[in-house]
């Protein structure tokens, strides 16, 4: 038997198909955005805290994730909770990436990038909104943050809201520490939290 049938796929493979597919994928991301089919765009960003995953809806930055959370896991969570129309599309994250680079380079204290807080609802969302008022280089306690909400005694719920913050760094849950001055938990790990507080103190 002639080998033509089984060889057909390889006979139809171009010499530079990897580059061709990269180009086609970039074109797909751009056309999808034009036709309002790009529900979630994402990219990764190298940072002093390791690789960060950045994801944005058409409304704004919706998720910042540490490598320790498992980027694949986070992308699946976005597919389930926001939309499965998820594509690698760095252009929409240009501003967020630049602002984070500036932040890590001591060139930025506040973030202007539009945010989409849809992954936090109810009280958790209220906590995140209050968190945005905790300024660069300062810290507050979980009790102190609770006091700014409508439920000043819900200290544990504030802890949960910080621990599940979908937008760490940009919504500064790392500025919340325990009343006794110890670090408390952090989505990116305690070492990352310490690094950020040291960066902001420098």
């Amino acid at each position, binding site marked *: 038997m*002639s*080998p*033509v*049938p*089984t*060889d*057909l*796929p*390889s*006979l*139809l*493979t*171009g*010499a*530079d*198909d990897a580059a*061709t*597919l990269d180009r*086609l*994928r970039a*074109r*797909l991301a751009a*056309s*999808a955005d034009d*036709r309002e*089919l790009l529900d*979630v765009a*994402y990219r990764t960003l190298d940072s002093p805290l390791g690789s960060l995953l950045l994801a944005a809806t058409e409304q704004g930055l919706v998720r910042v994730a540490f490598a320790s959370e498992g980027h694949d896991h986070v*992308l*699946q969570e*976005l*597919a*389930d909770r926001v*939309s*499965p*129309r*998820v*594509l*690698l599309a760095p252009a929409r994250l240009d501003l967020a990436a630049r602002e984070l680079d500036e932040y890590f380079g001591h060139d930025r204290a506040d973030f202007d990038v539009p945010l989409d807080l849809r992954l936090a609802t109810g009280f958790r969302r209220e906590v995140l909104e209050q968190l945005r008022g905790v300024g660069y280089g300062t810290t507050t306690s979980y009790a102190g943050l609770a006091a700014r909400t409508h439920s000043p005694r819900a200290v544990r719920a504030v802890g949960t809201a910080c621990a599940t913050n979908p937008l760490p760094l940009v919504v500064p849950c790392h500025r919340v520490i325990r009343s006794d001055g110890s670090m408390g938990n952090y989505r990116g790990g305690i070492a990352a939290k310490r690094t950020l507080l040291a960066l902001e103190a420098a």
Partner: protein
Amino acid sequence: MSLPPFEELVERHGARVLRVCRAVVGPDLAEDAWSETFLKALQAYPRLPADANVEAWLVTIAHRAALDQVRAQRRRAVPVGELEERADERTVGLDPDLVAQIAALPDKQRHAVAYHYVAGLPYDAVAEILGGSADAARRAAADGINALRRTLPTHARTHR
């Protein structure tokens, strides 16, 4: 069950869909067919049942996109300059004789060969895309492959 991020589909199936498009519409139109296929797939994706056969679904969309494209191609007169430009970007590493012989196959044979031998779909899935029975799809693919064997005797040796 939930749908994976669409990017995973592009990653997993992108290269194969490109080969299928080359077989169906030829290398010059294949990239446009690929883009149209994945855009249409992205649009419909949220409604895809989580247990669907993704490969067959994508090939079905590619088939329709290819038909649309060929129709559009016949409608508009392509300026000579554009044709030359397309020839310049012709995919490196493809045998022009093979491309010409596949293009010369009757539509049904070319489609059956592309969806069975290039996409890897079983004949019942090919039949669902083309209409008709699985046996008819099998015969069309066999006729197409035999025609390629007759016209491309050297491929057995040179492309091993």
